[in-house]
């Protein structure tokens, strides 16, 4: 059933971003090409317009991803659409998983499109595809020479990024669900809850970092070249983020399952 829910959440996702993602890539390409135009005066005007457009689309992509996270949960479950979603034969946990995975996909693809736009911009600007491919080849060769430990660290870093992203999205979901319990002004209550729980989360994570520091495993040491076990440090940080995600998920699921109140 979760896969079926995902099918509709992904449809919603791709309909919402169907224009933004291609627009960012096309504008990046056009902006890169505008650098090579002559005469200089025409290039200046076009360049200015393209930079504005490109910046606008990139900002819109970030804002759209943030809005998507909030609205797919709030409007999709706790407003009129909730009358449909909560009468489907699925559990609250399945609904949360579906919203979470589609929100993570929105953020990740937006991030990749942003990165791809800058790469495309650079490639179009240099206009020498040979240079671009040579650079890509150099990068691939470097990657091929990395040792197993570095690969492990890279994989852990990637996993940490994903888990931390999930934790942040689940924190937002939990705060929206807490706001739903408020007798009035649920939006305001959700923002208040987010401020409180974000501060609490920072406190917890800094406590975990202090603990790791005392054990000689602080995350900061990883970047400062201090001695330690970076793979262990990353693994413990992933565990801390996973624990937070589990708490946020459990609280949200409890509220949606036992305290739902679609008035």
């Amino acid at each position, binding site marked *: 059933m979760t896969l079926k829910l995902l099918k*509709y959440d992904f449809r919603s996702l791709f309909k919402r971003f169907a224009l933004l993602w291609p627009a960012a890539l096309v504008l990046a390409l056009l902006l890169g090409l505008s650098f090579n135009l002559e005469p200089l005066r025409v290039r200046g005007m076009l360049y200015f317009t393209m930079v504005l457009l490109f910046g606008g689309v990139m900002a819109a992509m970030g804002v759209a991803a943030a809005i998507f996270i909030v609205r797919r949960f709030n409007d999709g479950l706790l407003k*009129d659409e*909730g*009358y449909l979603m909560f009468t*489907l034969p*699925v*559990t609250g946990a399945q609904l949360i998983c579906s919203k979470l995975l589609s929100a993570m996909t929105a953020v990740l693809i937006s991030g990749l499109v942003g990165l791809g736009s800058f790469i495309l911009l650079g490639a179009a600007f240099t206009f020498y595809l040979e240079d671009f491919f040579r650079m890509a080849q150099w990068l691939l060769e470097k990657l091929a020479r990395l040792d197993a430990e570095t690969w492990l660290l890279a994989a852990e870093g990637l996993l940490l990024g994903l888990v931390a992203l999930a934790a942040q999205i689940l924190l937002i979901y939990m705060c929206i669900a807490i706001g739903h319990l408020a007798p009035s002004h649920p939006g305001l209550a959700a923002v208040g809850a987010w401020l409180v729980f974000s501060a609490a989360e920072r406190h917890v994570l800094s406590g975990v970092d202090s603990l790791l520091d005392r054990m000689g495993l602080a995350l900061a040491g990883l970047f400062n070249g201090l001695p330690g076990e970076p793979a262990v440090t990353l693994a413990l940080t992933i565990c801390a983020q996973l624990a937070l995600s589990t708490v946020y998920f459990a609280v949200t699921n409890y509220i949606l399952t036992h*305290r739902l109140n*679609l008035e």
Partner: protein
Amino acid sequence: MNEIILCHGLTKTFGAVRALDNVELTLPRGRIVGLLGPNGSGKTTLIKLLCGLLQPTSGTVEIDGCAVGVHTKSVTSYLPDRMYFADWMRAGDLVDLFADFYRDFDRTKCTGMCAALGIHARDRIKTMSKGTKEKLQLALVMSRRAQLYLLDEPIAGVDPAARDFILNTILTNYNEDGTVLLSTHLISDIERVLDEAVFLKAGRVVRHESVDSIRETEGKSVDALFREIFRTQPMEGGAW
């Protein structure tokens, strides 16, 4: 088990307001039941509790022998008093969604009903009129072979011709082995189709009887009895 709905001591409060008060209700299978009461009597609250959209303050609800959950939702077809479509969808997306989630959904029947109403799979929800959306929602809900149909005010706020269409759609499409619970305060329009009537007043079930029995014992129609039960006496001087 012959009962489809079993409510015991069901109470729901919103702050200081008691929307449902210790409701005891048992409904058998294969009946069309009117949930009757004036505005604010607790009809929608009771239906939402049966759907799982609200949680009871106290008491229990069972549908098909189970507490409200995945199983009860799979056998219940719910028509809410509002539109629940996402605006990005097309009519075809909704038909797909119902076919994906409900095993008892009859896609052919739904497509036929939609075609008769002039609704096509490619039609966008965003561009549909309120009336068309309501008809689409009704077609989806009545295309299921459900054990229980919960229809919340399906004929409220529509013209008499649309009321006839809605009632005919319900009567010609519901699963006759299942039960239809239909809430309304427009008794005269639905009286002819009801087997049983449940009267709700200020969150309490004040009467639950078969329509035939009401006619026999009271010697009056359900509509007349409704007016008698819920009559508000005007005060002297014209104030209510």
